[in-house]
């Protein structure tokens, strides 16, 4: 607004200058006759006296519309850990669990040390804008109802089994499901192979003691996870929602 006013004021200046010159030429002529005048009454409100310097720079950079930084397939953001590809497919319970295309899928999980990307709250804490939303991502399901994320195998934190959070929205953004994906356990499982990264597994909460997964007696919330530490892991999970 200020810039616009400033540019307008420049234009008014440019227009009014010749008028002043014309007026100067009329020196010696006594005032009293009718003058025709020029221009029309402006609508620019005065911003004079606000005691700020007006901008005097070339305009730009020009903004363009950008999606939220969640929208990406690789959500690693420089976090170190064993590579994990997560393939989540969404089915529609109201359509015999057939693939749901166009659904928005958000996932988030903790890093190898068990920390989430979060900051702020009520304090004065600020953060660098370049990598603030690590291990959070958003994809839209394809014709097969599938989204794929590249990430690292999650670590764990006190009180919880290894898990990934998922929030599924309809194409128009209505929440359809908020849930969590559990990991298989036991000898040879990815959880056992990763062994809690540098933390180890002392104090680890297994699925049957976890306050979210312990009621899942049939294992419907447990993903299929294959792979090795060297080659990386692949997680597949089918999630059916009412759409």
């Amino acid at each position, binding site marked *: 607004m200020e810039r616009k006013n400033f540019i307008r004021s420049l234009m008014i200046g440019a227009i009014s200058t010749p008028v002043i010159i014309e007026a100067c030429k009329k020196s010696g002529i006594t005032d009293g006759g009718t003058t025709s005048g020029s221009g029309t009454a402006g609508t620019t409100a005065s911003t004079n006296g606000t005691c700020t310097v007006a901008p005097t720079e070339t305009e730009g950079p020009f903004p363009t519309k*950008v999606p939220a930084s969640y929208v990406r397939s690789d959500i690693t953001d420089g976090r170190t850990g064993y590579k994990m590809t997560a393939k989540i497919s969404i089915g529609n319970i109201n359509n015999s669990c057939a693939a749901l295309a166009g659904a928005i899928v958000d996932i988030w999980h903790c890093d190898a040390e068990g920390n989430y990307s979060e900051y702020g709250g009520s304090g004065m804490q600020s953060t660098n804008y370049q990598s*603030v939303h690590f291990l959070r991502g958003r994809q839209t399901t394809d014709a097969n109802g599938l989204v794929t994320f590249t990430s690292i195998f999650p670590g764990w934190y006190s009180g919880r089994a290894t898990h990934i959070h998922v929030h599924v929205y309809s194409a128009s*953004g209505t929440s359809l499901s908020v849930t969590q994906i559990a990991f298989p356990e036991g000898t040879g499982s990815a959880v056992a192979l990763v062994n809690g990264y540098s933390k180890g597994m002392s104090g680890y909460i297994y699925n049957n003691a976890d306050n979210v997964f312990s009621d899942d007696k049939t294992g419907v919330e447990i993903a299929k996870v294959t792979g090795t530490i060297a080659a990386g892991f692949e997680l597949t999970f089918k999630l059916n929602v009412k759409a």
Partner: protein
Amino acid sequence: MSQKIITLCYRKIIDDSNLNHWDKFVHEDSFLEFKLQSQLYNQEGKYSTFAELLMHVPGAEKLHFLVSAAITGYLRQLNGIIPDILDNLGRRFLSFENFKFEIINSDFNNIEKHKVAINFFSKPLVWHNSIDNHLLISQFTEVASEETFTNLFQIQPFVSIHSIKTIG
């Protein structure tokens, strides 16, 4: 000789009345992201405003952070320069890396009630002197040089000194 090293904070308020494109994009996209993410804290659909969520739902304050992903792309477009704030020559001169996004107020059903703030935190500056009502400052560098280029700058509404440290 001791030096005062300061960082400045500019709290840029953006609501429905902001007219320039960048501000409008931030306003619209943060509103859409708020509508998406707030559903996590409003699964029964009982509430309609951010204030209600903060009051009744544990963890709802995380929405400040969660919604901020809608605007980090726009922060990148600023090329590291804090907008709006000018030195006495009329140039933007403050560089930043850190920010904090806030939802001030919002209502899922009414974008006109959506009001946010971006706090921009400047990189460290040396406060050399105060001249009249202006601060004479320069970019802080680890290596001292004989001559330093400076900016003359007036503290204005929504700008404050965020931190101060005396060194040397």
